[in-house]
């Protein structure tokens, strides 16, 4: 039986794949609507017995005792891999003409090795035309849940035992975990527009703004919203000339904010690796070549890449003779380099990089690196080993620095894996190829456990034959045991080529293909929420229905991917979401791919009833708003449905509506960049996921005006705030009021009167701001010729002005001094744009750097370490060249960094000189000091760390209650509490209280002023209360002579109440 297929589209080897038992089963019966898919979970017996090594693949002598072997290696090679090399190969750019002439897709299409037939071309073109108009629309059928699923959890031995039926999947019946499609989905590359290669081997990666997909042999970049931004050929992208390249792999590295891509170059025996610039895959990529032999004859097949916090690994099955028909398997091999050598390559592009090459291991095959968020230090490869006795997962761990890397190999018993039969399909007797072994692996960020998935053969409950199934295994990294080991199967349905990832939330997501005699090969997704019971999975959802069976076949099989029919990537913007892609057939011999964003709702937190008037996540939005929406007039009609807008009471949310003048529609990439960076904000949330969910609605165009000032901004807001539909709604008053409580409002205008300033916030903090990039000198829109600001200018200014809305200033907590070298924030003019520090992150400051005293600068201490480390800044004197933080600084430019009392005007104003003032420059932590304003009319602001009452009504009500307490306490005082126990004074005081404090019918009483919300009279109220306080304060350091209430107990009870109320009034006044 074939175990692997090699070298792109050729099959050159086979191996036995043994199986001695049918899986012990637990069954999830999933009743699905068309296409019906019933999934079973087949639990495996934990294998505790000692095992023997698989014998079907000859292994290297160095692995004779490899149940736990350690290899401390420093670049040392075994005898069969002395010719490995790694070198930089320059830069690949989208913008510049590439060395290879086939930079455009049209040209690539002309180069198709396997041209489409005219009929097929027409079919695909028609489909493209019909779907291209709505990239983000709902997929055909749109019934993404497939059915009301009747889930059955089965336990026990043997597929016949099914009990008890209808048991919920999740451990907590209050929690209803579910996997859902987000509605963001679109067509990926297809056979026509990727050069006609076959099969596609789709791969995907996403950062907060961009989604990259690659197939054989093209790629595309979409925005987070699904809009197509770029398409390209992989030959041009990898500078591969006319070489035979195949098997692209993509990943996104959270720690460096870069994309990595790889592809096998069969002709030169290398894996080409490309790495993007941080945060923007549309810019140039650095390219590298990982050669697996000096001659280029040895061929790395099915190469995978992985990153850890400090390393990049490339692994492949190495064959001889260019993977040709007479190729011999030479073993599995990994090459590991320092990640920084790839992300910041040496200036000499031709220089070889330091690397660690593993021995070629003939006992290893299809060793897949576990996807890693980029924060774990280890690189871990896993593979599924089958043998005569006990099957196992082979785990190879690489830890430590590349120069002294430690390699540890562990074999972990698993239940036996059976070679799967081909997958059935309608309209053909020829089955789909299912011969891939291990498909995908990923490492959980929650507990570092490893999940892996492979093909398997099993018999589903009620089925009468073994079918193609999917094996899922979780390895506990602390015990090195398989703690979950089960098959996913479906009666009458073959499951094919899974891929998996572990989300930031800790939940598992799997995507796979499925087909049967009644089901054309289609793409599905499922998952296991973090808090789900072991050995269970969620109800699957249909991602894309196949439009045809695959009739592009050889004699006895039809290819369905080389080693991956689907791939996916955890979405860094939302830890509950994943991007998936996979193939389907658009015609009987033409493939296409589909991309979809799915989400696993697993926490169950939304089921918890929170204190309604508190703010659990400190984002200024009350729990009840985020759980149930806003009803501002208490008419039981929800005026703003925040939950449906994505609000989460356990995670900070920030909402902004953006309108724009003609020509000034904000660039979507810029908004997405800001949204993405908010998602990475170093703020804590009750759901234990950092970040702020920034919800931006780009709404509507407003009339163009040459200049706009702040008063005119308010006029625009009065007319245009809310959507046109909301303003036309019969309930518009309440809707708009509700939105004003929640939404910031921004307008992209042309310019401001008398200045070329890029923007302006209404106040600090505030709810309104403008972006004004229309003055001559800002970037020009090439489409319209209108000056609107470049992408960097738009996103920098948008985030800068939003920062003012959130209480930040140009020096952090103050406007000056600007250009502070130790304030690494987009609020600082030094960092608002990227013209002075070209690689500055678009970010607010993440920590307060140490203060710098310009009258006593300490050179050894330097500027202090940035957050994250290594960010650049600049300081005078001229030429203010950017330099890294966190190192000693030669403040006086005398050639050493040992001086400790240096005077220097160090804030460099636009690359020339200081600001003329010697002072202390303080660092500032922006993200920790944001102020979330919720009600502009009242000016109430709430720090994220001290959530309080937030609406005007609630605050006034709170103050009334305080006043009532004071009133009641005073009214209840005994006569002995008054000076000289005077009945007259007591009576007079109580009369005053009744008339001037408690009388709610009078707008002039204290209660009336608060009740009628007269903030302009709050000062009067506060003064009156202060007067009251002054005649009862002798026991707390006040003047005794004028006290009318002298009882110290009464004083100490009432005075703090008065103080608190006065403070609340003063806050209202501010």
């Amino acid at each position, binding site marked *: 039986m074939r175990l692997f297929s090699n070298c792109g589209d050729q099959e050159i080897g086979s191996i036995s794949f043994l199986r001695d038992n049918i899986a012990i089963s637990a069954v999830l019966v999933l009743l699905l609507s068309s296409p019906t898919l019933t999934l079973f979970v087949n639990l495996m017996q934990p294998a505790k017995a000692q095992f023997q090594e698989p014998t079907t693949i000859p292994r290297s002598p160095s692995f004779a005792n490899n149940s736990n072997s350690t290899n401390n290696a420093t670049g040392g090679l075994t005898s069969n891999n002395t010719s490995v090399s790694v070198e930089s190969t320059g830069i690949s750019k989208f913008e510049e003409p590439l060395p290879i002439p086939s930079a455009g897709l049209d040209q690539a299409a002309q180069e198709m090795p396997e041209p489409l037939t005219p009929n097929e071309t027409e079919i695909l073109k028609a489909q493209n035309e019909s779907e291209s108009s709505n990239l983000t629309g709902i997929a055909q059928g749109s019934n993404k849940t497939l059915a009301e699923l009747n889930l059955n959890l089965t336990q026990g031995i043997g597929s016949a035992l099914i009990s008890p039926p209808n048991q919920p999947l999740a451990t907590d019946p209050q929690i209803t975990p579910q996997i859902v499609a987000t509605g963001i989905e679109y067509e990926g590359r297809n056979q026509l527009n990727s050069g006609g290669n076959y099969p596609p081997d789709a791969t995907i990666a996403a950062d907060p703004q961009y989604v990259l997909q690659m197939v054989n042999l093209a790629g595309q970049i979409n925005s987070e919203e699904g809009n197509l931004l770029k398409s390209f050929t992989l030959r041009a992208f990898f500078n591969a000339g006319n070489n035979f390249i195949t098997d692209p792999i993509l990943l996104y590295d959270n720690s460096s904010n870069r994309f990595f891509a790889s592809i096998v170059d069969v002709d030169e025996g290398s894996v080409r690796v490309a790495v993007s610039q941080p945060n923007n895959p549309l810019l140039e990529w650095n390219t590298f070549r990982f050669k697996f032999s000096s001659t280029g004859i040895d061929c790395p097949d099915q190469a995978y890449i992985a990153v850890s916090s400090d390393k990049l690994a490339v692994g492949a099955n190495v064959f001889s003779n260019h993977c040709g028909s007479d190729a011999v398997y030479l073993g599995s091999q990994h090459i590991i380099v320092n990640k920084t050598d790839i992300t910041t390559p040496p200036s000499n592009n031709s220089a070889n990089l330091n690397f660690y090459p593993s021995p070629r291991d003939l006992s290893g095959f299809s060793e897949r690196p576990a996807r890693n968020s980029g924060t774990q230090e280890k690189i871990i490869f896993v593979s599924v080993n089958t043998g005569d006795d006990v099957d196992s997962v082979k785990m190879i761990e690489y830890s430590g620095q590349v120069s002294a890397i430690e390699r540890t190999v562990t074999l972990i018993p698993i239940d036996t894996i059976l070679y799967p039969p081909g997958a059935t399909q309608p309209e053909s007797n020829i089955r789909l190829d299912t011969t891939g072994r291990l498909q995908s692996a990923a490492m959980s960020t929650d507990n570092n456990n490893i999940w892996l998935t492979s093909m398997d053969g099993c018999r589903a409950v009620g089925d009468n034959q073994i079918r193609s199934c999917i094996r899922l295994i979780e390895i506990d990294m602390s015990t090195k045991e398989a703690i979950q080991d089960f098959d996913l199967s479906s009666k009458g349905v073959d499951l094919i080529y899974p891929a998996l990832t572990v989300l930031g939330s800790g939940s598992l997501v799997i995507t796979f293909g499925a087909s049967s005699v009644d089901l054309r090969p289609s793409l599905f997704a499922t998952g296991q929420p973090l808090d789900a019971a072991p050995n269970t999975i969620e109800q699957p959802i249909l991602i894309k229905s196949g439009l045809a069976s695959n009739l592009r076949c050889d004699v006895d099989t039809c290819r369905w991917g080389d080693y991956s029919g689907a791939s996916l990537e955890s979405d860094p913007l939302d830890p509950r979401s994943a991007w998936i892609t996979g193939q389907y057939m658009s015609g009987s011999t033409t493939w296409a791919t589909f991309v979809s964003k799915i989400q696993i709702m697993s926490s169950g937190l939304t089921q918890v009833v929170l204190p309604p008037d508190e703010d659990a996540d400190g984002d200024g939005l009350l729990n009840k708003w985020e759980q149930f929406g806003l009803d501002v007039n208490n008419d039981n009609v929800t005026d703003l449905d925040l939950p449906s807008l994505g609000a989460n009471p356990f995670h900070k949310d920030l909402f902004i509506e953006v309108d724009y003048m003609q020509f000034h529609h904000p660039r979507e990439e810029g908004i997405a960049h800001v949204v993405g960076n908010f998602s990475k904000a170093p703020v804590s949330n009750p759901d234990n996921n950092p970040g702020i969910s920034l919800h931006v609605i780009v709404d509507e165009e407003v009339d163009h005006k040459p200049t706009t000032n702040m008063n005119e901004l308010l006029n625009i807001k009065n007319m245009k705030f809310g959507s046109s539909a909301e303003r036309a709604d019969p309930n518009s008053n309440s809707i708009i009021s509700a939105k004003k409580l929640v939404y910031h409002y921004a307008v992209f205008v042309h310019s401001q009167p008398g200045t070329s300033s890029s923007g302006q916030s209404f106040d600090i903090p505030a709810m309104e701001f403008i972006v004004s990039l229309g003055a001559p*000198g800002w970037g*020009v829109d090439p489409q319209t010729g209108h000056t609107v600001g470049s992408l960097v200018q738009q996103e920098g200014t948008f985030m800068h002005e939003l920062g003012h809305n959130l209480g930040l200033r140009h020096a952090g907590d103050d406007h000056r001094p600007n250009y502070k070298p130790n304030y690494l924030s987009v609020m600082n003019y030094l960092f*608002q744009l990227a*013209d002075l520090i070209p690689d500055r992150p678009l970010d607010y400051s993440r920590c307060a750097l140490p203060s710098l005293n310009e009258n006593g600068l300490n050179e050894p201490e330097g500027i202090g370490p940035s957050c994250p480390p290594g960010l650049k800044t600049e300081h005078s004197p001229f030429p203010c*060249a950017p330099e890294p933080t966190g190192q000693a600084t030669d403040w006086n430019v005398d050639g050493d960094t040992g001086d400790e009392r240096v005077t220097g005007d160090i804030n460099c104003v636009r690359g020339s*000189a200081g600001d003329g003032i010697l002072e202390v420059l303080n660092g500032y932590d922006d993200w920790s000091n944001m102020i979330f304003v919720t009600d502009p009319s009242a000016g109430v602001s709430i720090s994220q760390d001290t959530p309080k009452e937030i609406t005007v009504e609630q605050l006034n009500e709170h103050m009334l209650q305080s006043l009532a307490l004071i009133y009641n306490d005073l009214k209840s005082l005994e006569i002995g509490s008054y000076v000289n126990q005077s009945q007259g004074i007591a009576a007079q005081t109580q009369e005053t209280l009744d008339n001037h404090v408690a009388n709610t019918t009078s707008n002039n009483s204290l209660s009336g002023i608060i009740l009628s919300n007269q903030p302009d009279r709050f000062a009067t109220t506060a003064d009156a209360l202060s007067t009251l306080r002054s005649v009862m304060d002798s026991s707390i350091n006040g003047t005794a002579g004028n006290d009318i209430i002298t009882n110290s107990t009464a004083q100490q009870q009432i005075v703090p109440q008065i103080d608190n109320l006065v403070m609340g009034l003063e806050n209202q006044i501010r």
Partner: protein
Amino acid sequence: MILMNRSFSIIFYLLIIIILLNLPIEYSFATIMLQDSVKVGESPVRIDTDLETNKVYVTNYRSSSISVIDGNTNKILDNIELGVYPDEIDVNSNTSRIYVANKIPVERPGYSAIDVVSVIDGNTNKILDNITGNGIKIKAVNEARNFLYMISNSSFISVIDGNTNKILDNIELNQQPFDIAIDENTNMVYTVSKGDKSIISVTDGNTNKILDNIELNQQPFDIAIDENTNMVVNQHTNRLYIVANINGSSSFPDSDGGIEIPRGILYTIDTKANRILSVLELISPRGLDVNINTNRIYTIDSFNKIVYSIDGYNNGLISEAMYTGNLPTGIAVNSDTGKIYVADSFDNSVYIFSELS
């Protein structure tokens, strides 16, 4: 296409200025194209060319060296180690001497380094001498007379004999000088300085006497004379050019606003009459040089990353190119080969452009 539109806006301003000054309008067509780039040391800041040897010299501010580039092949020929922070550089093509401001570490109480201008033999790339002075910087070379003009932290400019490296004279300006340019035909020395006013002093190089002062502040511009101010002369056309920033664009508004456009200005001065001929508003200009054969002026908009070629006759924009680097800090043109060199202190590279007419 962005470039075209930016051209329109700049040309618009230019036309207004030309019309106001009643200058003749001439049209030329040319294209600036990136030819090559060369990796140099860390943080290259200043650049100059030797017309005789077709070598290019770049000061690497953070790697204490000069990169020597072969102007024919665009390859690095040598790397000359210096003291720390090499900055201003000037070349005398007649003598193959390279003058570089840098700092030499010393063991002296209260000092870790002294400011010097190193004299380098361009044939051997060896340091021949160091001229010391507090804050001393080379600013101009009279190649014909082999005189060096330097500034320091004082209100003087120093005239130095290039044969002996000794001071011949000090010229008192009464305010801080920032840049110097020389008309070798007339032996006039032009020094821009800043004090109460921003002034270009016109000094007779024969007598070292100041003959005239040209005030630069003209409403509505409030120019900022500082280290970013650059000045060059085209002695063939009797034109003096100076670029500088405009004050106000880098202020600290006590408001809630964003940054303003950092504006700059290019003055063209008639050196026969010592009067300002034209004024062209630019965006954040960095560096300035002139091709004395074509009378093209080159500078860079460091804000929008654009290389400008400007007609030195009428201040008319001829062509522009997107600058593909990140942080341009210095520019030089070889008038013989027409190559334009831009030092990029972020990319650690020199970008090489050519202009096709």
